[in-house]
């Protein structure tokens, strides 16, 4: 286990569900923490009877959702004001993102739950462009339930051998995002090409 992850695991063992709540909340809010490893470990600890799966899963999902929602609300409430204060002109990609999330909010929020850093970025941008909160919460819930549930279940299944696997899930997460990006880019490319031909 690398030196970056070890303190988080110690914290988890010492403070159990409180630590799980704090770590998943902070990871949802802004910090790029090694979430897959933490969740995988929690699942493994549950298999060993040190944690309860019935408590860990709701705690992790709820805390992560709360973190996501905090990021969303902060960006919604203070995002534009912060840009104004810093005298930063709203980038054109934010306008494009706004158009994108209005039409594909579900898939964007759901898929990015599998890759921590992207999830945080999407939370902030969703709040910034003001997507409907109810829809955001719904897709966030399903995304978190599936992503956290899957990793925790694998941790539970792997038991004491979970330490051989952490990198695998991060890689799988990036592959999912990569597949979606390639499909998205392909669709965009075809549309662009048609437009060029029409012109």
């Amino acid at each position, binding site marked *: *286990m690398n030196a970056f992850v*070890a*303190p988080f*695991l*110690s914290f988890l*063992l*010492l403070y159990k569900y409180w630590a799980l709540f704090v770590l998943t909340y902070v990871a949802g809010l802004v910090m790029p923490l090694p979430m897959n490893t933490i969740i995988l470990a929690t699942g493994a*600890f549950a*298999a*060993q*009877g*040190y944690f309860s799966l019935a408590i860990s899963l709701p705690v992790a999902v709820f805390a992560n959702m709360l973190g996501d929602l905090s990021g969303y609300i902060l960006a919604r409430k203070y995002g534009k004001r912060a840009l104004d204060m810093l005298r930063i002109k709203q980038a054109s990609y934010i306008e494009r993102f706004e158009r994108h999330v209005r039409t594909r909010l579900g898939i964007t929020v759901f898929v990015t739950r599998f890759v921590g850093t992207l999830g945080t970025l999407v939370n902030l941008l969703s709040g910034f462009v003001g997507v409907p909160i109810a829809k955001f919460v719904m897709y966030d819930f399903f995304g978190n339930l599936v992503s956290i549930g899957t990793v925790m*279940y694998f941790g*539970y*299944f792997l*038991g*004491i*051998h979970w*330490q*051989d*696997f952490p*990198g*695998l899930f991060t*890689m*799988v997460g*990036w*592959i999912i995002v*990569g*597949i979606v*990006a*390639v499909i998205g*880019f*392909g669709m965009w*490319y075809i549309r*662009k*090409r048609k437009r*060029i031909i029409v*012109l």
Partner: protein
Amino acid sequence: MNVVSPANKKHIELLLKIIAVLMLAVLFFLCFLLAQRYAALQKLDYISGRRTSWITALHPNGPPTASDTRLIQSWMTFDYVNHLFGLPPQYLKDSLYISDSRYPRVTLEEYAEDAHIPGATLLAEVQGFVSSFLTK
């Protein structure tokens, strides 16, 4: 409406093709890494040995054996090690002559630091005592 000249059209198309190829290359590379990792784990005879039990996986794993003591790490707490290997709570405390009041809710690393013992030495001692307890 913007009018795109034929030279620009070709230029844009070429650029888009290059981006698409690069994205696919990265994706293939990630898939290759994943396959490589999976193959390495299969070689350890772990995945193949478990293939039949995916459906029934929601049953706790069996108790660890003496060979599993290699899994003990310095970030683990004594409490967790005791629980994991089914040790009596006082076993490691007595074996290692621990007088720290935080025991067992202290990590091996923290204890080693406070007791001025090299971390690797303590880890090896803990592994040794756990192993000898399990082989008793």
